[in-house]
């Protein structure tokens, strides 16, 4: 964030000396001097309002996860009288949050590596080599970005089933990779095109094979691009809901998002709302924490595609 924005952080407040007429939208210019202040209050007010609207629901969830069931229903906004840490342990063990976490880590770990390896291989070839059908294959990949995935999911369910991959984690990994390829190939093809050709050519003259050039020279050079697209895919796959809902219906194999939704349905009968909120917060916190730590990279990764 800081890198994209050179001059937007004014230092200490300076006495206001506005002499120009600059009005807020829809507010005719009155006294120029108080105007700047009015606008400033106005814009700050709205910015704070939206910040509150973003943070408040999240804080409410955190607070609720420490309360007992009765006070959740009787006074939703009251602070917890005692911290019910047992909600968290109950969610972790009894509500199977630990299994959901493990499944998600396995699936996302496998598919993230697979996506980056396969995506960069395809993108490199498409970006750097001329051969008949290059454009066709490129657009075949790109087309996948704008097609509604649900249309393919109906037959895909049976394709995956026939291959014996339904309700398996490795089956889910393969599907995640396949559906992450369009954006990954799109992004990395553009990225490989920006890298200089000369280094690879020099290595080729020295007798290195294409494969070796790719793994030992091009991939290290493409690291910034791989990090961006890796973060993009990590969040997309970690937060994925539609694919596992369709292709992964075995209760033991559920990933985090599915597991929480199922938990919400079943807690309706068991009445353990506090445990459910603990589960929700448990699922939110690691991602939010990672975002705050790697904030610049995350923002770059997620906005990179849209800025092209």
């Amino acid at each position: 964030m800081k890198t994209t924005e050179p001059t937007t952080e004014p230092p200490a407040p300076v006495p206001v000396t506005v002499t120009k007429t600059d009005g807020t939208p829809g507010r005719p210019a009155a006294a120029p001097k108080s105007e700047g202040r009015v606008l400033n209050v106005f814009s700050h007010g709205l910015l704070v309002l939206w910040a509150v609207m973003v943070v408040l629901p999240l804080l409410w969830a955190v607070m609720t996860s420490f309360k007992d069931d009765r006070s959740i229903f009787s006074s939703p906004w009251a602070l917890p009288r005692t911290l019910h840490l047992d909600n968290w342990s109950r969610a972790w063990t009894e509500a199977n949050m630990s299994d959901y976490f493990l499944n998600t880590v396995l699936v996302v770990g496998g598919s993230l590596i697979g996506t980056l390896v396969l995506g960069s291989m395809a993108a490199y070839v498409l970006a750097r080599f001329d051969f008949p059908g290059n454009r066709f294959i490129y657009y075949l990949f790109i087309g996948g970005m704008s097609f509604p995935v649900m249309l393919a999911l109906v037959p895909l369910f049976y394709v995956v089933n026939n291959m014996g991959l339904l309700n398996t984690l490795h089956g889910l990994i393969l599907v995640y990779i396949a559906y992450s390829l369009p954006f990954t190939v799109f992004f990395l093809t553009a990225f490989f095109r920006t890298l200089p050709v000369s280094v690879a050519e020099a290595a080729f003259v020295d007798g290195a094979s294409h494969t070796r050039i790719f793994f030992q020279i091009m991939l290290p050079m493409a690291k910034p691009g791989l990090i961006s697209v890796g973060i993009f895919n990590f969040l997309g796959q970690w937060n994925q809901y539609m694919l596992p809902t369709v292709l992964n219906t075995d209760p033991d194999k559920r990933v985090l998002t599915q597991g929480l939704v199922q938990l919400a349905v079943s807690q309706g009968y068991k009445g353990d709302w506090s445990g459910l909120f603990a589960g929700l917060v448990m699922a939110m916190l690691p991602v939010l924490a990672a975002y705050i730590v790697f904030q610049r990279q995350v923002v770059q990764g997620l906005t990179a595609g849209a800025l092209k």
Partner: protein
Amino acid sequence: MQHGKYRFIVGFLALPLGLYALFVIWPFIQSIYYSFTDWTGLSPEFKTVGLGNYRRMLDDQIFWKSLWHSLLFALLVPLVTIGLALFLSFMINAGGRRRKGGPAVSGVRGSSFYKIVYFFPQVLSIAIVALLFAFAYNPDSGAINSFLRGIGLGGVQPLWLGDPDLALWCVMAVLVWSTVGFFVVLFSAGMASIPADLYEAALLDGADRADTFFRVTLPLLWDTVQSGWVYLGILALGAESFAVVQIMTTGPGGPDYSTTVMVLYVYQKAFRDGQAAYATTIGVALLVVTLAFAAVVMRLGRRERLEY
């Protein structure tokens, strides 16, 4: 760089392309074929029925409802989200008070803080956000109604998701809430790259802030706005609306089908009602809507590209 070129190209493309073809391309083609059959999905036998499914679809009231709701999602969610995001990012980047000798426009204090906070929902799974808001909307014990009671509006206690006239708007609001931050960050990056002398020139010509926004900022950001619109519209037609509607509304699909969307209807027909062929027919309609939407936005929004 000719030596072993084709062997290398084939070797590198085979795996990604094969996986993509098997799990993405092939199901898409199958889907379109199945829409002309009476396949149930439960048994392998089926026969072709020509346009039978399409005729049935045109008489299906629920299909028309889902189409209408999907169109609302694709138009209103981007409209509100992008409008709000443009407003907020303009406030962040140009809402600061002007100082003598300072730049023509300046950001508000704490601009990077706002951007960090606004981005929070973007890293969370839409499934988790949907669950959180399903509780917040709860008429008796939810955060929203209890907040209204707390500020003395005890008489205003809508049923939110339980009210057929309100449910769809509640669901859309959640999508807006979760995507505004992404666009604020995206537009802020774009605004930061607009040269300050353009603003100075506009101010010298006597432009107020509204003029500056509509005559300078918006035209220069237009490409980003447009691609953002397409990106968000495709999401709102597909995976995102599936998650929010399926998780938040009763049924799912809302009271009296008041929130059902095409992508959810495909899912229900295929995996709940055992009508896979009919589901793919609706899926094909969704494909047509998606492509038409993208084409219309790109075409309506076409302008001369401004260089700066």
